[in-house]
């Protein structure tokens, strides 16, 4: 039998339904593992063990009484500490907000609770989802379970590290320039940035209003779909929420349909010429294309605007919007930020309105370019990270490699994008690929990702920890 800590959400749910496992048993096992491993990994800022156990006992009674709500019922979920959980501080991993007690749950937390999920605690992030990995903050940075000397990606770093290490089967992250997909890539798990507006951002501390997304991280494509089923939905109080989302539910309803006859657009120039990738990453991308072709997909090359320009548009928008959020603290309390966050948030003070509007005008053209490409293909395949994760204490190498990625284009355009494991580098760290879908067509995105997952079985590899 699979060890309890490696059970997927789907497997745990089936075991609960069959009365082969109880939510209290699963949570107890995970809490023991957290106590043993988290002192090395630092995935948690705050473990909420007592409340989680109380919830598990209540859920156990419901399930025993035959009132099972769905696949998340009784499943422990970790939460990035920029998302409000009532009664717990939302610190954003920052000295600035150490006492920022959340009065109510974020909408996405409410939806997860309604589905029966158990909130297990608040997880490490880069400071305000932008400044990290850093050692000058009130909490230590999370570390990579494949090798704790390396970073686990970010900014949803605790979410990635914890799911990867088997501390919980699913987690919430946020993604403004790739912050769900980066830890998924670095930790060899699955991370989805849904279509902009599909998941409510109300109760999530903003970084950049028009780029922010909330997404799930899990160890399987199917589990990402199960979490998204609970998370997605219109929220009239979130001005970015999509009222007319036509997403077919459940999001995993096409997971077993294969890819025969589907068209996959391979954005080779991202990793070949725009930002040449590490050789192992490039080889894994070619192998991903070959696997999909073998499974019956028509893989063809697609050209989009250059990765460097996408990145510049993302940065101008992000810096401008985040300055409007952080200006008061940067003026009054600059020393209460860690250095990385301070350096990454200050540029907005020097960007004129013309730069911001210019970036937003170019953005519209970039959206049109991706939409044009997705008229001819069903999904896009491209790189996620161009390099395996660097050593966490090598600030120079981390600075060099952190921006070498192809995730920001889809924050700029708002298309759904998923990163997942595609191999192991010679140093034993995960490699990754990224799939991108049409607006609100997460089901197709998951369908293609599931084919790749089952054909390669990288998802069965586990980090050499505990």
């Amino acid at each position, binding site marked *: 039998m699979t060890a309890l800590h490696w059970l997927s959400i789907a497997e745990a749910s089936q075991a609960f339904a069959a009365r082969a496992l109880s939510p209290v048993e699963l949570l107890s096992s995970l809490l023991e593992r957290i106590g043993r491993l988290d002192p090395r990994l630092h995935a948690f800022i705050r473990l909420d063990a007592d409340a989680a156990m109380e919830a598990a006992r209540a859920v156990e009674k419901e399930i025993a009484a035959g009132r099972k709500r769905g696949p998340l019922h009784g499943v422990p979920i970790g939460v990035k500490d920029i998302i409000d959980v009532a009664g717990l501080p939302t610190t954003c991993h920052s000295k600035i907000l150490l006492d920022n007690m959340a009065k109510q749950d974020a909408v996405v937390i409410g939806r997860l609770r309604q589905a029966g999920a158990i909130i297990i605690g608040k997880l490490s992030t880069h400071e305000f989802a932008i400044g990290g990995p850093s050692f000058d903050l009130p909490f230590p940075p999370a570390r990579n379970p494949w090798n704790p000397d390396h970073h686990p990606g970010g900014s949803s770093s605790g979410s990635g590290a914890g799911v990867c290490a088997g501390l919980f089967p699913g987690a919430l992250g946020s993604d403004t320039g790739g912050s769900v997909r980066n830890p998924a890539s670095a930790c060899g798990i699955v991370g989805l940035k849904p279509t902009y507006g599909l998941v409510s951002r109300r109760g999530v501390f903003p970084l950049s209003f*028009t780029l922010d997304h909330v997404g799930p991280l899990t160890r399987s494509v199917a589990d990402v779909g199960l979490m998204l089923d609970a998370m997605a939905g219109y929220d*009239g*109080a979130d*001005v970015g929420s999509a*009222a007319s989302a036509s997403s077919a539910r459940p999001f995993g309803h096409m997971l077993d349909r294969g890819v025969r006859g589907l068209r996959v657009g391979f954005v080779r120039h991202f990793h070949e010429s725009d930002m040449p990738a590490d050789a192992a990453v490039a080889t894994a991308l070619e192998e991903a294309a070959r696997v999909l072709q073998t499974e019956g997909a028509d893989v063809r090359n697609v050209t989009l605007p250059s990765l*460097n*320009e996408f*990145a*510049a*548009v993302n*940065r*101008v928008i992000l*810096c401008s919007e985040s300055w409007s959020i952080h*200006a008061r603290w*940067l*003026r*009054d309390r*600059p*020393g209460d930020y860690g*250095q990385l966050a*301070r*350096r990454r948030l*200050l*540029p*907005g*003070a*020097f*960007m*004129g309105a013309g*730069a911001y*509007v*210019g*970036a*937003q*005008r*170019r*953005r*519209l*053209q970039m*959206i049109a370019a991706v939409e044009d490409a997705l008229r001819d293909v069903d999904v896009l395949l491209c790189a996620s990270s161009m390099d395996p994760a660097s050593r966490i204490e090598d600030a120079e190498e981390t600075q060099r490699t952190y921006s070498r990625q192809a995730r920001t284009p889809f924050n700029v355009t708002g298309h759904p994008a998923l990163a997942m494991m595609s191999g192991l580098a010679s140093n034993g760290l995960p490699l990754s690929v990224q799939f991108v879908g049409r607006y609100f067509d997460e089901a197709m995105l998951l369908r293609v990702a599931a084919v790749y997952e089952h054909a390669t079985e990288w998802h069965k590899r586990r980090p050499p920890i505990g």
Partner: protein
Amino acid sequence: MDQQLVAALARAAGLEKALAEFPEDVAAAAAQALNNAGAIQVPEDPAVEPWPPMRAGTGL
């Protein structure tokens, strides 16, 4: 970048404290802002509008 110009812009943005305590961070931020903005091909067609468009009667 011209350090005097950076200092003047920082003061205009209300960043006197940051300028005094973290002058290197302020200078690096100013340089980054300039580099990023210059890397974008802003549309020449005056009719290209920014995203997101204004939409009357939707949302709230």
